[in-house]
């Protein structure tokens, strides 16, 4: 397309593509150029950028735009990469026959150094104007420095790159040699800056010295480089040092072939070349291997810039397209099967849950009924047990005590005891009721915050039962005592009077009177004893009645509250169940609708997706046709 050598020192350098273009701004619309004779790769690249925009991938877009700008830039960037201490800087120096890059025994190159043509030798450091910014897209400033000071000053912070210009015929055509810091160094910043520069490279010289064959780390590096820039030449340096360098070169060729990497391999010796330049020894120059390298740079890189551009674009565009196609294809297959499957399975799930709910609501109802029945009988038993204990206590007391004395105290005691029994019993009822509620909640099909009702208890409980009736107490008054005494003494007097009258004594005598008194006293005692018994019996009966009353009343209350609790729990849970069922039915209905809607929507989207995929694949094929590694991509 063009002949670079024909344009030696022309002020207007040729574009890599041979086209003229107006101001091309990175952020602007692509296509602001008047295309005189757009090379095929530009169309394809622009179309790929368009595809990235449609698919909302600004990252890929930015990358492609960068590549586009770089390809339109007339400069040809040749990156020199490799592990540290392989002789990269020295290689650049030897290529140019000038000590532009500092070389040293320890790690020397710390920032990428761009060496390009200039009419007078000059150098500058480019550094981030704002400290701490990233390498990309931050304002930079240029500081002019003497060439021999570049490396020393480049070690300062925030220096992004060094730029050196020297007048050399090799660089005349717009060639830029970029010396980079070694990869795999312990200082990862160096490696990072090398990889950042890699994105801008049109061609790469990978440097490995002849003291050893390519290591696995170097092979990894080579593959990584190939992904970003396919135009790689492997340069084996320091062949002057190694007697067996031919063997190493052979091994390296074999390694490359085994890895399937088509890259030229050129053995050189920078030391010999520099020496030859000093002495003007042509034979030594030939021996150094550099003539071959220079020819390679000129013919394979400079002269075939268009091919390089096509290849580079092919690699970058196809990687971008692959990234676009993959999610699209995935989406299509999802539409095909898994999306529908998903909606259908949603529907099935909803139906399953409705069934489940029905099945389990029977369960919780059973649990509620059983538990409440148990609860009521347990509580009643407990109450009966407690009242019986109280009655037994009452019996024991009134076997001995006289109710006539301290009835009030007794009444108080009885009242207290019954109250306590009732309270305990009722507390137990409440506890059990809450436990039942929790158990029912556990058996409820789903868990919810408000599953356990706040209160299940009726509030009108514990009305006091009827007052204890005071039993009828018959006091034993004095006249009664007198009368009883007289009645008893009458029999005694008469009995003994008759017996003693046989002995000739009068009916009323000392003996009969004494006996009368004795009999009278006894009958009074008997009478009072009987009366006590009667009173005790009366008291017991009264207590019994009272407790019975209490039991009747309270057990009724307990049973009522039990039923009340049961009812309110049932109401509570059935409301919840109904709500739940409604929700589930709704989701099942919507799932059913979704399945129906999906059919039509899916078909439409499928059609569109297929069309888009076809478009991308066609584009991909065109990209491939530009000349890159052959990769298979099918719809």
């Amino acid at each position: 397309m063009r002949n670079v050598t024909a344009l030696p020192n022309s002020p207007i350098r040729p574009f890599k593509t041979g086209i003229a273009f107006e101001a091309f701004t990175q952020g602007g619309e692509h296509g602001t150029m008047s295309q005189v004779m757009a090379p095929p790769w530009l169309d394809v690249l622009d179309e790929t950028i368009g595809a990235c925009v449609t698919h909302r991938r600004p990252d890929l877009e930015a990358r492609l735009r960068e590549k586009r700008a770089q390809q339109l830039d007339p400069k040809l960037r040749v990156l020199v990469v490799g592990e540290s201490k392989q002789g990269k800087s020295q290689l650049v120096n030897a290529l140019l026959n000038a000590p532009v890059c500092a070389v040293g025994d320890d790690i020397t190159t710390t920032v990428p150094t761009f060496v390009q043509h200039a009419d007078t030798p000059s150098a500058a450091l480019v550094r981030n104007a704002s400290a701490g910014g990233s390498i990309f897209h931050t304002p930079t400033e240029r500081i002019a420095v003497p060439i021999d000071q570049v490396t020393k000053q480049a070690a300062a912070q925030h220096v992004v790159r060094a730029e050196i210009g020297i007048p050399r015929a090799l660089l005349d055509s717009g060639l830029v040699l970029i010396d980079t810091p070694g990869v795999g160094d312990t200082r990862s910043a160096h490696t990072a800056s090398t990889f950042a520069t890699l994105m801008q490279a049109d061609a790469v010289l990978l440097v490995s010295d002849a003291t050893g064959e390519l290591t696995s780390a170097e092979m990894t590096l080579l593959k990584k480089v190939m992904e970003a820039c396919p135009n790689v030449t492997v340069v084996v340096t320091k062949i002057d040092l190694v007697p067996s360098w031919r063997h190493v070169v052979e091994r390296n060729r074999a390694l490359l072939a085994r890895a399937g990497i088509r890259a030229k391999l050129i053995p050189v010796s920078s030391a010999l070349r520099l020496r030859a330049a000093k002495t003007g020894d042509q034979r030594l120059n030939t021996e150094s291997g550099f003539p071959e390298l220079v020819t390679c740079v000129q013919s394979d890189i400079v002269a075939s810039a268009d091919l390089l551009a096509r290849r580079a674009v092919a690699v970058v565009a196809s990687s971008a397209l692959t990234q676009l196609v993959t999610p699209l294809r995935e989406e299509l297959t999802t539409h095909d099967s898994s999306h529908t499957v998903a909606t259908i399975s949603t529907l099935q799930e909803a139906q399953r849950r409705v069934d489940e709910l029905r099945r389990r609501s029977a369960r919780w109802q059973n649990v509620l009924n059983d538990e409440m029945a148990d609860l009521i009988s347990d509580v009643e038993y407990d109450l009966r047990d407690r009242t019986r204990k109280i009655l037994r206590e009452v019996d024991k007391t009134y076997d001995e005590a006289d109710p006539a004395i301290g009835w009030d105290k007794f009444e108080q005691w009885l009242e207290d005891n019954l109250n306590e029994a009732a309270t305990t019993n009722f507390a137990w009822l409440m506890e059990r009721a809450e436990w039942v509620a929790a158990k029912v909640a556990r058996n409820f099909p789903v868990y919810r915050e408000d599953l356990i009702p706040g209160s299940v208890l009726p509030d009108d409980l514990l009305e006091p039962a009827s007052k204890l009736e005071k039993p009828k107490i018959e006091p034993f008054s004095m006249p009664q005592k007198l009368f009883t005494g007289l009645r008893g003494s009458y029999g005694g007097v008469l009995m003994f009077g008759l017996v003693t009258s046989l002995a000739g004594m009068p009916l009323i005598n000392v003996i009969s009177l004494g006996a009368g008194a004795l009999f009278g006293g006894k009958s009074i005692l008997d009478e009072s004893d009987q009366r006590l018994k009667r009173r005790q019996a009366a008291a017991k009966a009264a207590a019994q009645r009272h407790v019975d009353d209490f039991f009747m009343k309270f057990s009724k209350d307990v049973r009522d509250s039990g039923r009340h609790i049961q009812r309110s729990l049932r109401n509570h849970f059935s409301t919840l169940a109904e709500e739940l069922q409604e929700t589930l039915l709704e989701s099942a209905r919507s799932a059913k609708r979704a399945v129906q809607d999906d059919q039509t929507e899916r078909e439409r989207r499928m059609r569109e997706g297929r069309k888009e995929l076809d478009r991308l694949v066609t584009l991909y094929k065109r990209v491939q046709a530009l000349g890159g590694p052959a990769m298979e991509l099918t719809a």
Partner: protein
Amino acid sequence: MTLDRVVWSMLQEALGVYRDSPRATAWLRSHAERYTEPVRIAVAGRSRIGKSTVVNALIGDEFTPQNSFVWYRGGTEPRAHAFTGPGRPHELTIGRRGNRNHVEAGQFDRSDRVVVDWPARTLRDVVLIDTPSEATPEQVLGDADALVYLMRHVQDEDLKFLRSANDHPIARTAAVHTVAVLARADEIGAGRIDALSSAKQIARRYRRDPAVEPSCQNVVSVAGLLAVAARTLREDEFAALRVLSSLGREELEDHLLSADRFAGEQFPLAMEPTVRQALLERFGIFGVRLITALIRQGFDSQVKLTGQLVQRSGLGELRDSIAVHFVERREVLKARSAMLALDVLFRMEPRQSARRLVADLERVVASAHDFRELRLVAALQSGRTKLPAELQTEALRLIGAEGVAPPARLGFEYEADAGELREALLDALLRWQAQAVDVHAPQNHRRAAQIVVRTCEELLLQLS
């Protein structure tokens, strides 16, 4: 009780606890046996870095490289055995191939290890293990007490290897078993005549590099080919090199520009190309350049030349490092290996009756002062930690850089009695206690002083 005695008694105790497990017993027995052997040093590194060359240089005899682990042990007469699996070892013959010794591995080419008994002075104190480059860190360190790791400019892979060597709680506490070697120092600077001194400077830089420093005791630079040459330079080779150096400097330089030129047809001297080729293979282009320059400078007898080469190649420094960091600290390194072995056992076969031993092990690891001393020796010698000059000398002496016996530590050159020792020790203790709490001193200074104080306190216990 010293560390090695403590660990030894733990080994014995573990043998008692695990006596019913044949596997554990065999494991403990092998480690108990290893406890009394010389320290085992593995030489490892990436492929073609020059592992065998360095091993040869250390032994002082050339052996052809093998594909398996090769152990060089001291012995009264040359013998070699191949070990494969659990079977009995096979005796191998040692022949000559060219000017090198060659172990006829034959069918045992891929055996687990080849053990060579060789009468050499170096091998009295150490067992050297030459490792294949594809060996994993676990394989390399499983049998070795110490590691000499060869690398060129430090690459991530090297750091990974060194770190994985310390990837164990005990190993981390006691990272005292590695000396890193900047190998092939002669290739630095594209073989310029001052390559070796510049390699030494780079090694010094790596010694303080925060990425390299925590995982090794020292970094030295070694030019393997020159080191071997120094140990095995032959009469005829010396004669040939003398002839070469008789040539004019300019003229010789021209022909030493590249290996091709040196071995090529056009040569001003009547010297067979095969001879020149052999010289190249033995010494490398740099070696020939340096040796001829040295002869011209007046090191013109074989003895003088050899002395120069040992010193310049870095072999002397490597040997010193091995002596200071490994041989003199044999007990500590052996204890370290045994503790690692015990830890493996306790994790593989945990049992109730070993609970106390596990606790003991943890306590010993946490409190072993010897490891801290070793780290400090390395830090002071490499310049990572700096103390004022007179303090530095005393600190190094006290923490045992010049010998671990109390009189040596306290700087007595004659047989001092207990009273004198005690007095000197108390004096040192007070001085260092003051250093340890000196608020004006920098942090690492104070920390170093604390370690010295601890050493003094332990010495005090030993003396009373």
